[in-house]
């Protein structure tokens, strides 16, 4: 419909309805790789940062003093993260699939959690239930934490008792800063695939060991 009118022509209801439809159609919505901001003078279009072609599990991304880790699985279960507001699933959705208004929980990093060599790791920590199996994530059985200790340097991860619970860590990403310096350093990805976990209890002079495999 041609909405332009000539001098003296009557603007009919159909013209107004069409004009309203056109106005509605000019509403802009953000699609892939786009962020839109409505201002008084128009819409600002922001292209999202260029990303790598492959987005894998456990993809860690430094955001200020926090790190965002894309969802991953251990034994088919998703770890939880405490972002200061309590433990929440790392993908930002609750058990019913409802999106948390607070967004995805980000792990707050601590400068104190670097070891003397300048290393710190983002790890997925498995905690065992009394049965010896991995506890449920909501019971703290699977949590993302920052750790200055590498307990996995020779294959399996040595069992460590923290606050009375048996724990095993698996490194997802390495943070490294030059020795003697402060700050959170640079981040190097370590894990990229879903993980399996099994615990082998201590025996015959051998410590309890958490085995993780892809």
């Amino acid at each position: 419909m041609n909405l332009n009118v000539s001098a003296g022509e009557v603007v009919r209801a159909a013209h107004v309805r069409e004009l309203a439809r056109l106005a509605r159609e000019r509403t802009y919505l953000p699609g892939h790789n786009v962020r839109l901001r409505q201002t008084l003078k128009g819409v600002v279009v922001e292209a999202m940062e260029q990303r790598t072609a492959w987005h894998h599990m456990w993809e860690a991304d430094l955001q200020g003093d926090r790190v965002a880790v894309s969802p991953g699985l251990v034994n088919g279960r998703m770890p939880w993260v405490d972002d200061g507001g309590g433990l929440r699933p790392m993908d930002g959705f609750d058990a019913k699939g409802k999106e948390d208004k607070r967004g995805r929980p980000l792990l707050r990093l601590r400068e104190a959690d670097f070891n003397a060599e300048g290393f710190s790791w983002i790890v997925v920590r498995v905690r065992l239930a009394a049965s010896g199996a991995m506890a449920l994530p909501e019971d703290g059985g699977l949590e993302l934490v920052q750790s200055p200790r590498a307990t996995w340097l020779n294959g399996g991860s040595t069992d460590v008792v923290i606050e009375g619970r048996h724990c095993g860590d698996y490194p997802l990403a390495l943070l490294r800063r030059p020795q003697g310096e402060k700050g959170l350093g640079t981040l190097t990805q370590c894990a990229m695939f879903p993980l399996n976990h099994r615990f082998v209890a201590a025996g015959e002079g051998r410590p309890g060991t958490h085995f993780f495999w892809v």
Partner: protein
Amino acid sequence: MIFTQRNWNDWVARLDAARLQPGCTSRVERVPQGQVLSLHPPVRRWRHPWAVDVRWNEGGFFEARIAVAGLVNGLPPLVEGEATTLDDVWMPLRSLRGGLDGEPAHVKVFFGTRGVKAAADLPSSISDLPSRLLAACDVWLARARLSYKASVTAVDASGTSGQIVDYAVTYDTAALEARGASARVSRGASFPEKQRPTLAERLMGLYQDDGEDRLRVCSIYFLSPPEPKNAVPDAAWQVFTRHDLFWNVRHGARVEMPKQPPKPIRFFSGLAAGLGDMIINQNLALSNDLAQRIGAAVANDAPEGQWSIA
């Protein structure tokens, strides 16, 4: 409300001007709620851990670096001294091998079809290509661990119908003390392949373990221009990298001495010829049973490590 013609047409023109048009890296979808704008910026190529870059050094050699740091057990391996793959270290590639001998078949075909001679199994149709030379080297990961040596001792050979034999394993920390427990990136003309010893070799003490597990990262090939004047690679040579490792890895091996030295296994060989016959004559039920027991013990004692994807 009264519109003038100009006002009304101005509104229409403004709305028309606000219609999004897709450009070369964008897409516009019209939906009932409006227009969805999507952008497709150039996607950065994903580079895997251990990706290697090679460049010419004006000092007269090629050099390589691990461009995307790889991790072994969540730690960067050492490259030169105390530097690591995170430190962007360029490694001079001075030790090279030449020709196609010993290369895998697909490598022979790849470079043979580009004019590299001396590959016997190449099709004759490429014999007219101008001759080119090939040089190569390898980059690999290495991690020291306990080394071991098996010894077999005849304790009592006085009987005429058999022997009492002790099979014992001794461990050695020399490799660990010399190279440390950290993984290292090494390079050289050829990847030092390690043949897995047979049971017989182990039992007879013929196998010398070097106390190190290795994993090839990549092979780097240098292809000369046609009819080269010099056999030594220079900046005019083309570089091809064939990666073998694409993921961060874990390595598990014995790096600590057993708290108690392993007890020797003592057995009675019913064969007068002793242990050698036992291994050779495996069709004998008695020998097979014994070989299985010893094999299990040897496998348990061997400190060779395992590489796995992290």
